[in-house]
């Protein structure tokens, strides 16, 4: 009787799970196993696959394009994950206080993460054109260096005089007293404005003309177009991770901070001794999600590399290498090679997860 009830339950479970099992079985398990088999064969989608053993993997190691793609993927992944984790952490720390209207700002910051990679890529392309806003912004920044330098000097002057004046009146202000700094900043800006109006300082004539996209030139070993993608993607992914970190920060017990305040701990000590250690699990999660996400970079390669865009070798990633070998323009598909590269990509991803399991905390979800 009992056995019947439990097998009935299993039957119901099977019924409920059927659509999911279909998707998981046909479009994941079968596909994954098939990719493994393909990686040991020579296959062009039309003729039957021919077993070649490890030849595809050997060909990969000798293919300069694959090595470029691997290098790009790894570098992109490491750089973007580092940047976005650090910046998201800074942002989360800044937002994690009881300020009025902080939810509004949080929503505002989330905006770049909502749009599609396609739309974001179009914006990226426009920003990084030769006469685009990035080059114009850099030109403007370099051109106004005299103003910036002047402003800095004026600020230091006013701040120094202010501090000295207060100290003579018996108030021991620190050199960078924030209250005085606002006043000094305002005065410095006013000073610069007046001097510009009088005509004492002029902007420099600078025209930054970096061809960000249509170039093979490299900077720190990576091509310019890839740097453009790095900048843009860091920008669009920060908010997502900021939100996860914020949720983590909310989970740290308030009592710890109260105790630290009683002991008179400095903000730096609170950050390094309380916040970061307790945030470690969430930080690991963020790093893992970041690495997994960045390893799959694909859409931007296609958008940036389109007609009149970046040359393929400057932007190619592992994911694009796989796609490009299955649907090569004007050649027959190299499915075996593509599958082998895909498994390298999967291996990298799994290695990241295993590392997280090893050093991070165990049973937590991915979503």
């Amino acid at each position, binding site marked *: 009787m009992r056995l019947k009830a439990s097998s009935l*339950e*299993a039957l*119901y479970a099977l*019924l409920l*799970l059927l*659509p*999911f099992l*279909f998707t*998981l079985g*046909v479009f994941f*398990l079968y*596909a*994954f196993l098939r*990719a493994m088999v*393909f990686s040991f064969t020579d296959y062009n989608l039309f003729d039957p696959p021919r077993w070649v053993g490890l030849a595809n993997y050997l060909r990969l190691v000798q293919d300069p394009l694959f090595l470029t793609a691997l290098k790009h993927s790894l570098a992109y992944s490491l750089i973007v994950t580092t940047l976005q984790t650090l910046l998201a952490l800074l*942002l989360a720390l*800044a937002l994690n*206080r009881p*300020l009025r209207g902080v939810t509004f700002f*949080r*929503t505002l*910051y*989330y*905006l770049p993460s909502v*749009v*599609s*990679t*396609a739309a974001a890529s*179009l*914006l990226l*392309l*426009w*920003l990084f*054109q030769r*006469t685009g*806003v990035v080059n114009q912004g850099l030109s403007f920044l370099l051109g106004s260096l005299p103003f910036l330098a002047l402003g800095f000097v004026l600020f230091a002057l006013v701040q120094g005089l202010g501090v000295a004046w207060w100290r003579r009146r018996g108030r021991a202000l620190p050199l960078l007293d*924030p*209250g005085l700094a*606002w006043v000094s900043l305002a005065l410095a800006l006013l000073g610069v404005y007046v001097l510009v109006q009088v005509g004492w300082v002029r902007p420099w004539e600078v025209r930054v003309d970096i061809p960000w996209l249509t170039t093979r030139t490299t900077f720190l070993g990576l091509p310019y177009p890839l740097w453009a993608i790095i900048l843009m993607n860091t920008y669009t992914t920060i908010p997502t991770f900021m939100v*996860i970190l*914020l949720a983590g920060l909310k*989970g740290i017990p308030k009592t710890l901070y109260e105790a630290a305040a009683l002991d008179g701990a400095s903000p730096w000590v609170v950050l390094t001794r309380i916040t970061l250690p307790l945030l470690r699990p969430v930080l690991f*999660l963020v790093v893992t999600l970041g690495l997994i996400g960045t*390893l*799959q970079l*694909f*859409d931007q390669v296609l958008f940036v590399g*389109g*007609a*009149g*865009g970046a040359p393929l070798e400057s932007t190619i990633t592992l994911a694009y290498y796989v*796609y490009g070998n*299955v649907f090569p323009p004007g050649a027959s598909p190299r*499915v075996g090679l*593509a599958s082998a590269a*895909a498994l390298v990509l*999967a291996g990298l*991803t799994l290695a990241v997860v295993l590392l997280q399991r090893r050093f991070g905390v165990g049973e937590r*979800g991915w*979503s």
Partner: protein
Amino acid sequence: MEKARRLWVRLAWAYGLLLAFGVFFVGPFAMGFLASLKANPLEWPFSFRFAQVSPKNWVAAWRLGLEGGGNPWLGGMVPGREVVLEVAYFSPEGQEPTLLAQISRRKPGAGMGAVFETPYAADHVRLEGPVRVEARPAQLGDREGMVYRYRLRLFYPGEGPVLERVPLDLEVPRGVVLVGASLDPTRLERRGRVASWDNVVPGLLGYVFHNYLRAFRETRSLETGESLFLRWTLNSFFLAALKVLTTLIFASMAGYALARMRFPGKHALFLFMLFSMMVPAQVTFISNYLVLKDGIFGLSRLFGVETLLNTYTGLVLSGLVGAGAVFLMKQFFESIPREVEEAALIDGATPLGILFRIVLPMSTPALGALAILTFQGTWNEFFWPLVVLTSPREIYTLPLGLLSFRNAYGQVGDWGLILAGGFLSMIPVLVLFALFQRYFVEGPSLGAVKE
């Protein structure tokens, strides 16, 4: 006193920082949007003051659209109407300059838009003028001279087609400068000697959002002539709605089984599901492509369909329910107290009855979040549709459409159109975000940081 000072200072720093971050995160989008209104988004230096943001031009565009076609929003010109445009030129010489005005024969744009035959306004609309209405001495900079004001009358006699655009070119001798016009020209060419209007009867939307209208009007199917961009948008809506539906149903079913029922291999299935969420789509797409190509092991042939490539059936079947969605529902169901279901179980309800009658009605928050996240995911999805949907272009979704946009117009540098397409594609997600931002913001952390 000292305490209050410190508080204010800290608040000032905190809000200053928040504002700076705000500028950083919204700035590029705001600049891009402004640029998408311009005739030349790559103008150097970038200016925040241009014709499309001037209220004077809004009023003029409204009036001209109303006079020309009876449509103050989208403009156009119909037979029997006439419009009047005034321009003012500064001339440093002592004599009146000669103005050459003509309704030009120009194609509306490059790329796909250039292929279609549209009626030329030059064949139907007559131009009268320029007639001088005023001349007065004036000074421009440190130059003495005269300002001449002219009136141009455009009228459309007899019968004929409705014209979407009436372009106009005005050429003046060297040294003569345009100082005013009832509607600012779209662009100045040949060192300011030629002022050219893409449309003198634009209507308010047609003037301010001319690139957006072009995205709809110029991107048309070569066979049927219908607007491709509109079609892609509808496709995306249709597909997203379908995906939301299947995901809601099947994810709650599977999530419920995993959360509440006992069956052999449950833990293994759960682990396998997590594993499947980590493997990149590029690993599995080759086999999935082949599976769809022969109609899921030939099963689709039973319904008379040879292949599921280039069909929405294939796209939906291959993504009936994502592992992430199942995971989210499982986590939610586990948070519901068991007692609710046990009472129903004693009353003799079946598991299916419990799920659909009791648990799901209690789950609207989770279902809402899942619906919105699925919609966003499907709306933005790029890789898998790119593999499955290749031809004809009518079946593309919006992201694929944007790629073909980028390839068609990127080379000719028509960035107004590309940016407009990008921003149009963002609208539905942005509206959803404005309405349900809580779900978006909590989405990534749902289940991720659950103790």
